[in-house]
């Protein structure tokens, strides 16, 4: 088998999230592949636009029939081309790659999710997983920061999330337009920590967002008693292969694509703080 060879997938549905971000429901054209496809939350795919290139893209959701959703923000050539695709269009896809979130470790614990911007994407699967396996987990708390209320992804699901038993959702933004009706707080995700319900005892923290935000979030969590070992971060690096061969995603002695993208903070700490 050639790991570099993308499989054809068809876009079943496009949903607009924000001015530069859409969510796509994708299905492999190969029905057998489709049936056996069962990625875990936090894993990612290499999406291919023939003639343009490949990009690492997290899975934002999965369903029983093997179809998946990805949520993609337009930042450059591949992602820009993706944004122009319609339902019925084809795209190349290979994966899933990476380790995903430590869900087994999280069982029996209170789960705190701290996300910024696009960081919500790989964690949406975790929220849904907890919803579907509610008894296995303790309390769930989600702290989500975005630039403005209009930049928030999956807004249409917030009500459903809040209705998950023992769940708290805290939203914050960098700026609030004057004309807005939104009741969001203003401030960085870390400004939500004082009102946080999750206590460090018997908790696990899953963090994803811009690296600078993760650095600060992890530091602040430390000061309020969380141990490094309780904190997991999903890192982003430039990725050209997704399978530990092109070298681009190296961090310290690890490949983010193969050994991550989710790392325990204790292991990765020396490498994400500026030296």
């Amino acid at each position: 088998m050639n790991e570099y060879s993308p499989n054809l997938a068809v876009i079943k549905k496009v949903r607009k999230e924000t001015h530069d971000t859409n969510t796509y429901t994708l299905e492999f054209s190969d029905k057998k592949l489709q049936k056996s496809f069962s990625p875990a939350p936090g894993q990612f795919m290499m999406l291919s636009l023939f003639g343009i290139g490949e990009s690492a893209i997290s899975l934002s959701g999965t369903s029983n029939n093997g179809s998946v959703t990805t949520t993609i923000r337009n930042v450059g050539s591949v992602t820009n081309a993706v944004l122009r695709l319609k339902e019925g269009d084809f795209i190349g896809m290979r994966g899933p790659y990476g380790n995903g979130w430590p869900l087994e470790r999280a069982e029996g614990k209170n789960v705190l999710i701290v996300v910024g911007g696009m960081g919500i994407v790989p964690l949406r699967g975790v929220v849904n997983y907890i919803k579907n396996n509610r008894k296995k987990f303790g309390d769930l708390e989600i702290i989500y920061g975005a630039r403005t209320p209009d930049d928030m992804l999956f807004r249409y699901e917030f009500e459903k999330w809040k209705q998950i038993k023992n769940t708290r959702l805290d939203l914050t933004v960098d700026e609030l337009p004057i004309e807005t009706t939104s009741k969001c707080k203003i401030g960085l995700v870390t400004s939500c920590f004082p009102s946080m319900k999750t206590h460090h005892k018997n908790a696990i923290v899953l963090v994803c967002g811009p690296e600078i935000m993760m650095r600060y979030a992890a530091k602040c969590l430390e000061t309020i008693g969380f141990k490094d070992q309780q904190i997991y971060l999903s890192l982003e690096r430039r990725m050209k292969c997704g399978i530990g061969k092109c070298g681009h995603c190296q961090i310290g002695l690890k490949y983010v694509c193969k050994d991550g993208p989710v790392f325990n903070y204790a292991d990765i700490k020396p490498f994400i703080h500026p030296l």
Partner: protein
Amino acid sequence: MNSYNIEKKDMNILLDRFLEDYKVFGPTRPGADSTFDEITSIKQLHLDYTSTVLPPKKFFHPPKETLFSFELKNDKFTTKESIQDKKILILGIHPCDVHAILKLDKFFSTDFSDTYYQNRRKNTVLVAINCVEPSEHSFCSSMGTGPYLDEGYDILLTDIGTKYLVEIGSKTGQKLVEGVNLRKATETDFHEKERRLKLMEKKIKKFMNTTWLPRIARENLDHEVWLDLGEHGGVDGSFPCLSCGSCSLVCPTCYCYDVYDTMDLSLISGTRNRELDSCQLLEYGEVALGDNFRRDRKDRIRHWMLCKFGAAAGGKNSSCVGCGRCIRVCPSKIDLTEVAKVIRGGKQR
């Protein structure tokens, strides 16, 4: 395994045998430098070379290659892989370069297998030659990769005067010499090999102490030598690194590559390709919104050095084999053996 000897003047017989089954590549000397090129007649072959500019990596992990082509048909893309299965034989490869290939073999097969590398490798026969004359920059004896070879070859030659000692290392190697009228090697041949290799070892002038080196490197991430290498120069007379990436291109264990697509003018078909890349280049660590994890030159050269010291993600599979090529080509006179001394604290700058 069997051993034979062959008169140097009869090497053409062996070459002709190789040519029956394989495209043969070996050291040629088109100018002052040696290079691995196709050999069709014994006249082109220069087995008495010290080092080549590019390592034989180019045969397995070429500077540039097409992974597959694609075509748009009825709104759907079809892809066609370009798999290379030409049988080749590399004649006259040195121990350090064989060790580099063994490292890449491991690298390209762990966890995920790289079809393109594996296919080429599978179809390659290695006829190695022990080194009897070091290049001024090589330090293979420090790295345990030379001047003797004891693994990884199909056939191993050693210059023992007017003859070559021919040692067989695999079934493929054995099959290749069957039918060629070779004499059985004698005790004297082996003594001569031993003598010459001992002599060779004495001629090596460069060393690198590798004890705990990966660990020492990791514990010295904020050593001032990195800033000196990147910005000030002065590490044993070096100039600041130019971020030219030459060191990666000539290194037999540097594996990093970039991937890009090309499209025909028709916009119907195109290719996906890969090309060797280097962590010394600015773009290598770029991510969204202009961020870069290794923007400073000191960070890039540090990463490269750590990789070569076995302290990056590639581990032992991308560490140095002591071929000396990077030292030779570096326009800024940067020498990793000197860097190793500095981070050990063994040398004042």
